[in-house]
């Protein structure tokens, strides 16, 4: 996958049960804010997921905020990828 360049702030997801809202903005380095009823339990899992997706998109910096309503990891990945794609564009390889 080509490198993703973030251009704007964008969100994806809902506050319904089993979902989450992910908001991403351009930033110099990776910053994660993770909120939700079980955020202490799933903090490490979420950190790993964000790192994994950031690597997949060759993302160097982003401010990422996740409001977790009990989302499975698959759901969170989908919301994060959607928010990233809405926020940026893929750089064309030279």
């Amino acid at each position: 996958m080509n490198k993703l360049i973030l251009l704007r702030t964008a969100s994806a997801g809902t506050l319904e049960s089993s979902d989450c809202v992910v908001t991403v903005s351009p930033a110099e380095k990776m910053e994660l804010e993770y909120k939700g009823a079980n955020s202490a339990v799933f903090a490490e899992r979420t950190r790993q997921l964000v790192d994994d997706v950031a690597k997949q998109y060759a993302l160097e910096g982003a401010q990422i905020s996740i409001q977790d309503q009990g989302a499975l990891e698959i759901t969170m990945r989908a919301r994060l990828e959607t928010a990233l794609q809405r926020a940026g564009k893929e750089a064309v390889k030279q």
Partner: protein
Amino acid sequence: MKPCRSMLYIPGDSPGMIQHAPVFGADSILLDLEDAVALTEKDAARKMVACYLKYYDFKNLIVTVRVNGADTEFFDDDLKEIIPCAPAAIRIPKCNGPQDVLAADRKIEALEKENSIPVGTVRIHAMIETAVGLENAYLIASACPRVQALTLGGQDLTADMGVQKTKEGWELFYARSRVVVAARAAGVDVYDTVWADISDKEGLLKESKLIVNLGFTGKAAIHPDQIETIHQAFMPNEKEFRKAARVMEAAENAKKEGKGVISVDGKMVDAPVVARARHLLELADLYGFERSGS
């Protein structure tokens, strides 16, 4: 393949429903990217469905995806994202003729090759929901080997016909009959349209029994509560089941003995009757019928 009596529509942008899909009891699910998804959320639904197809264990559920129509800006992106995840089938809305199926077939084949998926893995369920599509039903069903089923879209078809969809369903009687015959002639499955009134289970049962008797192989559902009722309509009765068991036993014995002619209860039985008996026994297995003592 096991009989597929029910196909539950689940909005592609509803992770709560998607993750619970295996417990609803449907034979198959249809993750919807079309009507159930708002225009602003098409990208989110597409990504959600792709992620669940890639990473989620749907157990023994058959998973199909309804993409947006080929006449929309979303169609190509839907195929590009979904085909690499190899769902069992793609449901294509508003197929008006074989050219619509063949165009989709070419695009799916290219994506299968690009992603090292054996060509023909992702089947097509062609939706018949316009008058011209109905006229071309057999040509659509037999357009290419990738077509696995015809599905009737009752709401859009009645709108196209300029008539009201009623609970009695007489306005769909010809369309249902035509679609079933076209599908059977082409040797593909055939799914009926949804029953919209979730609270009216009696009406759903009556309609489901009608479509079973017309020859449909399955029916779409829009709510998990409808699944049990649809399955009830497909349940073979005891007499049918016992006879089917006798037919299959006679067919197996005839095969062993090298006989070409089969007789059951003093009557000649031919190949289509044996095929129906086999299908009935497959259905009966889903209801836990015991074959011993038949």
